[in-house]
């Protein structure tokens, strides 16, 4: 480690989102109500390039907070507005909130975007964009994907997908292109200008049907064609696939992560690309660790990959002994500092860590 800072949130979170002004947002996912959405100001040491040791300001500050009766499973800020959208069980509707730090420090609930609730629907996955009007892409199942305007709550697009598979992730590749990832691993590309068409990407290697998948897309890279960035997929068995969206018929790379088996389920599977380090990605959700990989050494053989770094901090936190070891619920890369990550676990811990590059690279 170059640096490691541990914090304890009042309640565990399963999301970490960056907001305007270098703010970080976390939210509780308890089933019995009283969940808090917290927008935090990170300590200055996280924002500076130089790592300071005994800097006086080492704490996160709660800038504002809101109360949610529902567990908050997903949260996305709506760009260019002071709104954010959340989703969570028991249904696939979305809640819209307003953050206004000038008048008060309470995040107020403003509206709900209702969706038709069919049977077997779980919570909606969401992605936001501000193209013309602020919009949110959401859906819990492949055949229920839609784009809704946040302010007017008007539906502007419904994907013509067939199949009732549960979605594990979705994203805007640009203002017209959507990427959908099903829990089965199936990847679909859609163009909202051509509602009827749908492009399938490669499936994943055939596997026991209980295996679940999630995806990670690279965002933030300026000037590059969004579809030129490889999409990574991670399975609950530890399989990793990289796919180039321009050549969806084959895998760019295939690897296997060393994860404990049997897996502890796919609830918190998380994979993400490093915004400032080419080819690096991180995975978590199997146990109390976060793995960082350099994918540039991967090929299509599917053999086991060696992580560049493993963050084990959460496994050693808090109450040991009889309690179940904490599970990492989410991780997130720092947007500017190349080797800094934030990770949260089911025991309420929040870590900020920076690893040292092993010799050879820089």
């Amino acid at each position, binding site marked *: 480690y170059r640096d490691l800072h541990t914090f304890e949130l009042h309640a565990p979170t399963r999301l970490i989102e960056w907001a305007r002004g270098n703010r970080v947002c976390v939210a509780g996912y308890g089933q019995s109500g009283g969940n808090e959405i917290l927008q935090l100001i990170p300590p200055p040491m996280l924002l500076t390039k130089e790592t300071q040791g005994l800097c*006086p300001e080492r704490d996160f500050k709660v800038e504002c907070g809101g109360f949610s009766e529902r567990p908050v499973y997903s949260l996305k800020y709506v760009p260019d507005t002071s709104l954010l959208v959340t989703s969570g069980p028991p249904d696939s509707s979305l809640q819209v909130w307003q953050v206004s730090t000038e008048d008060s420090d309470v995040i107020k609930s403003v509206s709900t975007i209702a969706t038709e609730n069919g049977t077997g629907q779980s919570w909606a996955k969401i992605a936001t964009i501000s193209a013309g009007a602020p919009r949110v892409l959401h859906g819990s199942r492949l055949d229920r994907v839609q784009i809704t305007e946040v302010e007017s709550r008007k539906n502007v697009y419904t994907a013509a997908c067939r199949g009732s598979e549960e979605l594990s992730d979705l994203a805007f590749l640009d203002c017209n292109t959507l990427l959908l990832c099903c829990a089965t691993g199936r990847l679909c590309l859609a163009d909202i200008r051509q509602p009827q068409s749908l492009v399938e990407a490669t499936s994943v290697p055939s596997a026991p049907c209980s295996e679940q998948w999630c995806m990670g897309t690279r965002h933030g890279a300026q000037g590059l064609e969004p579809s030129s960035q490889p999409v990574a997929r991670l399975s609950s068995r530890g399989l990793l696939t990289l796919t180039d969206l321009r050549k969806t018929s084959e895998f760019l790379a295939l690897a296997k992560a060393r994860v404990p088996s049997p897996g502890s389920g796919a609830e918190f599977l998380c994979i993400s690309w490093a915004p400032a380090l080419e080819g690096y990605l991180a995975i978590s959700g199997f146990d109390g660790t976060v793995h960082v990989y350099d994918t540039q050494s991967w090929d299509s053989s599917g053999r086991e990959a060696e992580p560049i770094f493993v963050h084990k901090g959460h496994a050693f936190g808090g109450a040991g002994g009889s309690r179940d070891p904490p599970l990492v619920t989410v991780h997130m890369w720092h947007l500017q500092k190349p080797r800094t990550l934030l990770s949260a676990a089911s025991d309420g811990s929040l870590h900020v860590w920076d690893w040292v590059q092993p010799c050879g690279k820089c």
Partner: protein
Amino acid sequence: GAGQDVGRSCILVSIAGKNVMLDCGMHMGYNDDRRFPDFSYITQNGRLTDFLDCVIISHFHLDHCGALPYFSEMVGYDGPIYMTHPTKAICPILLEDYRKITVDKKGETNFFTSQMIKDCMKKVVAVHLHQTVQVDEELEIKAYYAGHVLGAAMFQIKVGCESVVYTGDYNMTPDRHLGAAWIDKCRPDLLISESTYATTIRDSKRCRERDFLKKVHETVERGGKVLIPVFALGRAQELCILLETFWERMNLKAPIYFSTGLTEKANHYYKLFITWTNQKIRKTFVQRNMFEFKHIKAFDRAFADNPGPMVVFATPGMLHAGQSLQIFRKWAGNEKNMVIMPGYCVQGTVGHKILSGQRKLEMEGRQILEVKMQVEYMSFSAHADAKGIMQLIRQAEPRNVLLVHGEAKKMEFLKQKIEQEFHVSCFMPANGETTTILTNPCIPVDISLGLLKRETAIGPVPDAKKPKLMHGTLLMKDNSFRLVCPEQALKELGLAEHQLRFTCRVHIQDPRKEHETGLRVYNHLKGGIWDGYPASQIIPKKKKKTLNLDYLVQHLPDGSITVESILIQATAHSEDQGTKVLLVSWTYQDEELGSYLTSLLKKGLPQSTP
């Protein structure tokens, strides 16, 4: 400054006619009168001694007691000042130290003198933890352990059944030498809590300690010297224990020194106030003195010139004078050395200057000192965060919460959080604002023995767990409240008792003679028409639950019928032979039964009765 908000704590509470001042702090950032609280708020005219019933000081930090000598000696207050024993012992030391900087170093004139500090402390009454202290007949106070620093306490102020708890600064997590704050379920009407760190999610103590040890270790490894300026008491002990454990674990050889005089004084106070430290220390203290360290030795001035690495704890804490400044001057020029500032430094001190980034300092005699040594700052202050505040509220169960903080920050979110979780009202006034809290006081009332005996003789046996409704007259005379039976009240007031009797006329169609009508009524009432009418209401004065109708309804020789005290007489109608008039008469006390009978008779008599 260094990210810390050091305000001047001073709160005035008016409870049940008593006025209590909580803390009397000084603002360290100002050099003029703004550093003291504005005492004109208390009372525009009249003496403070007459207006205030007492003053309570929570702990020895200057932002809580710094203005006390000014207040008591320069503004003028001669009433009692309450604080815990350790606070009373340590306060004057810090006040004197601060006075020295302000007057001697900065040349201020409008400041309290050493004699004033002494005179002020003479007015202090020291209290023990959990000891109820009667300030006067009605006002009592009790101190609770607050953690934070040695001797810090939270105070409960009680007048009759109304109470307020003031927390001062407190800490809900124990550290190496102090325990965590604790209070019982005292259910005060109001809990006043500090909330400076309420919106903070703190870096874990382990990380801070790890970084501190890392810095010290790195410096010592490269042969440098580490200077840690400290106050005699407080975080110094915490850091000593930390370093000692680390040195032991890592088998380090570099010497650690503690200023002479400091060790003895600290040891003396900790031995004196051992009950104020945490469990672990108390346990081990019996076997060996926790504050006699294996690796930490007493310092001698000459050691500062020794070659090689070392760590020195020296007073005073802001590098403003004395030994720590001397050592600093010797070591400042070497970049291998390090100075770690342990806390807030007052403006004007060397500590403050180097923390602000100054690297060239002007010393006495116009000498310029170049600071090449590393300057670090650390904050190990022990305050409660939002989680801690919630914990304390959960422990004490107040009816209302008031949060005090220096900045006029909006903490709507915390307010809602408290209100939602505990269903209490939460207030956060700005400085200078007055908040009014409504309470439901219980007023004790004496009940006369006669009334008590009479009321318990009626109705079912009184149940200790259930409230019992009684009827009496409340007499309020001078300052006493008495509940007596009405007759006695009338007697005492010299008023004659009047009886009210109501008579109602019920017309019945019956051509027969009056006494026959009367008999009809009697038989009708004797038959079971009392269904649905609770026995206890019919015969409130009888204990029996069942009705004995023979006893209840009586036919008197003169033809009238009585139902308890209610009299029914049948009389002839003056004009109409076929109508009889029943006169139903009852006293005011039997209104209920009287009304019931009247409405019953209005329904008419059954034809079948003879």
